[in-house]
Each structure stands twice: as structure tokens, then as C-alpha cells.
């Protein structure tokens, strides 16, 4: 039996077509809030910060007097700033590297089927989701000079005695290691998610073919899977670097830049000078100093991704 389709009555097309029916216009309307958000809440403050950095603006005297690049000249002549810059690079790249290594191993473990894997996958996100203020309190107790859980365990196991117990936040090198470890701990769940997304997107037949050809675990991972997921990992790394380079929370909550300025990073220094001490123009200059550095890193990584894109 054949259905007889009712003839479509040709409607007279409206002279003025409703403008929202045009996909181009509608798309723009939907995207507009995001653009407005970026312009008002990111672009506006950014331009304001740029002007602060070239002005004499302080909380004591909120004047907009233009001073050119004097603020930048003054901060680069300060040895404390150069030390903070060096610390920032170390803090950023070491914590990202550690986070990536942990993330890679975590992802490989979570790919294997085992009872409760879904629960573990959910729990592993916790370090990323827990507010850093809360997590820092726990870490502070772990690294405390008097009540360190780590030291207590090492002493209880007879590995060290009280006199040899490391002063985690009191030794400049150990303190830097601590803030790096805490930041890597925050970052590694994100790295796991990135690696899991990347590894699961690699076609199984490619891996099977490599296995048939005799490639072992290491060769499969580092000569086949890693090169294929590198662009995805690089995107995750860009996020990690940008967030860590501009971060002050771990340092502020754990060490306050100490001991002897050993963990002072640019974000922390900008906050202390600009907000706590009220010298907004120099604080803005310190913060904006990160911009060209991050710009170069991000552009270099994006170019790398483009070249490696498969």
C-alpha cells in the first residue's frame, strides 16, 4: 500500500523573514554572552592591569599619572624579583613534569579492568576537586616541623631519628620540593583524564598490529601511543603551565614565600606588593611580566602541536 502524501500547500513566503531564523544571526546571539563575558570580565580587567602597570597608581594615591616603563625597569633591577622569577619557572615546570609522570602511570593503571575501577576513577579526581585551602591545611600538617605525619612514620619505622627528621618547610630546597609536590598532586588527576582520553582514542587495530609485530609494553607506549596522543597531552600541558605559572595559592597557604624567600613566586610577589602593600602599579607590573613569558611558551607549544598533528 502506498501512502498518499497530502500535497504541500505552498505558503506565501513572508516578505520579512524573522531575523533569528537565520543561522548566522542566531549563532552570533548564542555566542554573544561568552564574548561579552570574556570582554567584560577578562578583557576589561586585563586592560586595566596594563594601565596600572604603566601608571603611578597606589591605594594611597589612586592617581592615573603615566610613568611609562619605569615600574618594569624598577622590578627587574630587584634581586628578589629575579629570584621569584627563577622560582616560578622551577615551580611550574617541575610540578608539571611530576604531574604528567603521575598522570601517565595513573592512566595506565586505570585502563586495566579491576573491581571498583569506576569508584577509583571517581575518587582520583578528588585532589583536583577539593578546595586548595582545605587541602593545604592537611599538607601543612604533613610537613609541620613538630607534628609531621611523614616524619612520625619515618621515626616510628626506625628509618630516621628525631634529630635527623627533615624540616620540610624550613629547608629552602625541601620547601620548594613540597610546593612542587602539592601542586603536582593537584594537577595529576587532570593529567590522568587527559591521558585516558588520549589513550582510548588510539585505534585498537594500530595497537594490535604493533603487538603482532612484536612490540612490547614500553615500545607500544613510547613509540606508538605517546607520539599519537602528544597533541592532546600538549593541550593539557598548556593549561597546566598557564594555571601554575599564575598561581599563588599553594605558596601563599603553605609557605608564605619562605623560608628566606625560597618559594616566593611571581603570583605571590605581585599579590604582596600590589594588594597587601597597596602598590598596585608595581604589583600589576610583576603580574604582567608573566604575560610575554606565557605567550612565548603557549605559541611554541601550539606550533609544536600543529606540526605533530596526525
Amino acid at each position, binding site marked *: 500500500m502506498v501512502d498518499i502524501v497530502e500535497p504541500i500547500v505552498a505558503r506565501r513566503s513572508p516578505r520579512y523573514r524573522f531575523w533569528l531564523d537565520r543561522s548566522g544571526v542566531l549563532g552570533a546571539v548564542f555566542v554573544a554572552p561568552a564574548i561579552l563575558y570574556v570582554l567584560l570580565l577578562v578583557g576589561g580587567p586585563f586592560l586595566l592591569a596594563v594601565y596600572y602597570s604603566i601608571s603611578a597608581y597606589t591605594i594611597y594615591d589612586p592617581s592615573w599619572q603615566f610613568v611609562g616603563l619605569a615600574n618594569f625597569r624598577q622590578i627587574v633591577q630587584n634581586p628578589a624579583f629575579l629570584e621569584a622569577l627563577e622560582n616560578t619557572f622551577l615551580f611550574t615546570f617541575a610540578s608539571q613534569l611530576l604531574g604528567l609522570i603521575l598522570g601517565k602511570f595513573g592512566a595506565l593503571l586505570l585502563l586495566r579492568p579491576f573491581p571498583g575501577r569506576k569508584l577509583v576513577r571517581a575518587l582520583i579526581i578528588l585532589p583536583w576537586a577539593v578546595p586548595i585551602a582545605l587541602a593545604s591545611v592537611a599538607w601543612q600538617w604533613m*610537613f609541620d*616541623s613538630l607534628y609531621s605525619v611523614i616524619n612520625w612514620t619515618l621515626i616510628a619505622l626506625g628509618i630516621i631519628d628525631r634529630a635527623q627528621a627533615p624540616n620540610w618547610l624550613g629547608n629552602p630546597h625541601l620547601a620548594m620540593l613540597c610546593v612542587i609536590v602539592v601542586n603536582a598532586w593537584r594537577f595529576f588527576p587532570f593529567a590522568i583524564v587527559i591521558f585516558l582520553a588520549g589513550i582510548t582514542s588510539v585505534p585498537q587495530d594500530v595497537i594490535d598490529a604493533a603487538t603482532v609485530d612484536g612490540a612490547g609494553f614500553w615500545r607500544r607506549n613510547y613509540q606508538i601511543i605517546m607520539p599519537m596522543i602528544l597533541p592532546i597531552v600538549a593541550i593539557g600541558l598548556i593549561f597546566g603551565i598557564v594555571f601554575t605559572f599564575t598561581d599563588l595559592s599553594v605558596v601563599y597557604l603553605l609557605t*608564605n614565600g619562605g623560608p628566606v624567600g625560597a618559594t616566593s613566586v611571581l603570583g605571590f610577589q605581585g599579590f604582596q606588593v600590589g594588594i*597587601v602593600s597597596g602598590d598596585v602599579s608595581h604589583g600589576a607590573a610583576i603580574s604582567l611580566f608573566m604575560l610575554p613569558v606565557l605567550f612565548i611558551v603557549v605559541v611554541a607549544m601550539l606550533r609544536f602541536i600543529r606540526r605533530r598533528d596526525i
Partner: protein
Amino acid sequence: MSTATPSRFTRRRFLKQTGLTVLAAGSAPVLSAPFVSAAFADAKSLSIVQWSHFVPAYDKWFDQFAKDWGTKNNVSVSVDHIPVQDVAARAAAEASAGSGHDLFGWNGAGGAHLYRKFLIDVTSLVEEVQKKYGKISVIGKQIGFNQDDNTWSAFPDYYINFPVMYRKSLWDGIGIQPDSWDNIRIGGAKLKAKGNPVGISLGHSNDPNTTWRGLLWSFGGAVQDETGKHVVLDSKESVEAVKFVAALYKEAMTSDVLSWNDSSNNQYIDSGVSSLIVNPISAYRTAQQLNKKVADDIFVMKPPKGPVKQFMGGAAEFYGIWKFAKNQDAAKEFLKYYADHWVDAFKASSGYNMPIFANIVPKPMPLLSDDPTSTPRDKLAILQTSDEWSAVPGYPGPAWPATDEVYNNFIICDMMAKAATGALTAEESVKWAAQQCDGIFNKWLHRV
């Protein structure tokens, strides 16, 4: 036969309905504004923000006190308590936004002088209270008073003193009184060998900023001169002070002090480990609750004598009223009433909040002269004289934005720590700190 019926929920309809909903929600406040503002005008309100006190009972008392005042005066009062380290950032946020609490309570460095252009002049209020309760102490005048035009930009509330707290039995055991810096070094070395080191932080927080300034002054050094225009840190006296701290660290302390925050030294003495700290009496009050045996053995003393003087840093609390505050009159009235009941505030803080007006707490002061919880009952009596030996960070000059930045960047703490850990010699360390201070002073001198 099936016919294609057009969907009832079209894109156009969705957009139309969503748009109307958003428009209605957005315009609600505008439409209701005349009625809402009329309602607000009828009910007065006063909002206060200040630090979370180290004596929690004081916060409870203050909240109830403010609420009771509000009930009597038909004003709705709200009090917010924030961690002490967040005070500066909150002040900056409120000043930048031109909106926030009516009454802002500052603690420690920064505040009244930095935010002077954002605060109303409270000179008449301060003078009125001064007439009633006597002269303002030196430390009180260093806080909210503007030397250039003799005005007050903030109302001085109290200061926090930093006496020596020591374990009497331990120091008696070695036959040394910790009444001078030299004795603390010599006795501290002996007690460290017995497992009871001295505990003065070399970390980044308020306590070391205050204590090491006191030591610097006791040796005749200072960051700035009396005018506040010149950095005088690079001196023979400063080098001697730094050399002393390096020796004190090596002989009488442990490396733990490099990582301490403001509560670490309290825990150190309260746990029975330390033989001596320099701290407000909160450490003793906490010990009374946690470890009565240790508390009974903790005694309080004036700051140690140095080669030049016997002096110590202090921290100050003061209230500013924003120019943008909605209820400035209520804020002033509240401060007047608060000053009239200041003895109650003093008692609620267990003697932690020290008076700035000479007769606001007549001597002998309650609790400090006769504390029923202490043995002997006059254990804390020496604190009644602390206005004679306490000063804020700018001493001997005024506290101003440059001295605040030196404080906030922990330059004096790091000057001591660099030499103590051997990272720099005492001379190099003082030179480094003086250069840092010079940079900060040059910057601010051109901006105030």
C-alpha cells in the same frame, strides 16, 4: 495516512519565551526598586568586619555586645570575622569596589595611613574619647594619626604586646634569668642541650616581623629615622644585631623555626618542648586550657635588654570608617559606646587587648594585676607597663606605606634568617636588606 504536523515547540517560540523570561527576571529589581529602597531606609544597619581574634571568647563577647547596642538603638548590626592574613586583601577589595562594610577593623601593619583617602576624618571622635579617657600612648599615636596635618584617619582600639614567656623551672634549673638577649643566648644554649630550645620564628609571618624588629631596636638599629624619610638600616648596630641572631639561632634554637607560622611557637611552648618564646599572652591562655602543668610553669617578663635599650615590637588594631559607608553616624556612635565599655572588652580578651587611652582601664588593671586563673595571681602584672616598651614597625619614625611594605615583604625576617642559615654574612645580609628598603622607600617617597 500520516501527515506531517508542525512541531508545537518551534525555535522561534523557544527564543521568544526564553527572552521574555530573562527580561522579566532582569527587570524585577528595577521595577521593585522604589519599594525596596523605601523599606531599607526605614531600617538602619551597621556592618563591621575585623580579624578572627586569637582569643575566641573575645569574638563571642564582641558579637553580642554589638548586637545589644543595635537592639537598643534600632540598628541592625552584623559582624564578620576574617582570618588576620586576609584583612589587607579584603580592605583593598572594599576600597576598589567602593562598597563593603561600614566599619573596618585593621590589625598589624597597613591600614589607616594607606587608606587615608578612602576613610573619613575621625579626629573629633578621637579627641572626644581622649578628653574622657586620657592621653593616647606612643604606640597608639603611631597607628591612625597623620603627622602632616594632625588628623586621625582611624580610631585606635588596642595594641598587642610581645613579652617574653619562659619556663621558670627550666631557667631556674640553670640559674640564669632570661632578662637580656645575652642571657637568652647563653642560657638557651644550655637548655637546648637538655632538649628545651628557645623558639623564636625565622619564618614569614607577623611574630618574627615583630620580635626581630624589637631585637634590632634593642641593639640600636632601625629601618628608618624619626622623620621616616631616610633608611638607616645599613649600620654597625644592625650588623651587631644580625650577628647576634645568627649566634642565637646556632646555639639556642633548631632549624624548625625557619618554617614557623604565628601559631607554631605557641604550640612549641604549650607542648612542653620550648624553654622560651616571645609572644602575646594567647600562648599562655592556650596552655592554661591544654596543659595546666606547663601553664603554671610559664612566666611572663618584659622584653630582653639589649646593649642599647629594652624594647619590643607590637601590633595594633584600629577602626576606620569608609567614605562610602552607608551609615557613618551609626559607626561613630557605636565607637563612642564601645569606648565607654572598653573595660569589658579588655576583660573579654583576657588581658590580650591592651589599652591605648591612658585611663580607659585604670591601674591596677583587672586580670593583669590579679588573675584568679594564674599562680601567682600577679603573674601577668608586668604587662600593665607594656606601653612603655612597645612600638609598631615604623619606630622610631611613623608607620607609613613604605614601612608596611618592608614588613609585608618580610625583609627584616629574611635579613636575620639569611645570616642565621649562613646564606650570607651579617654584613652582606644587612646590605641586602638595606638595598631592598631603599628601593621601597624611593618608590613611596615619590608617591606620598
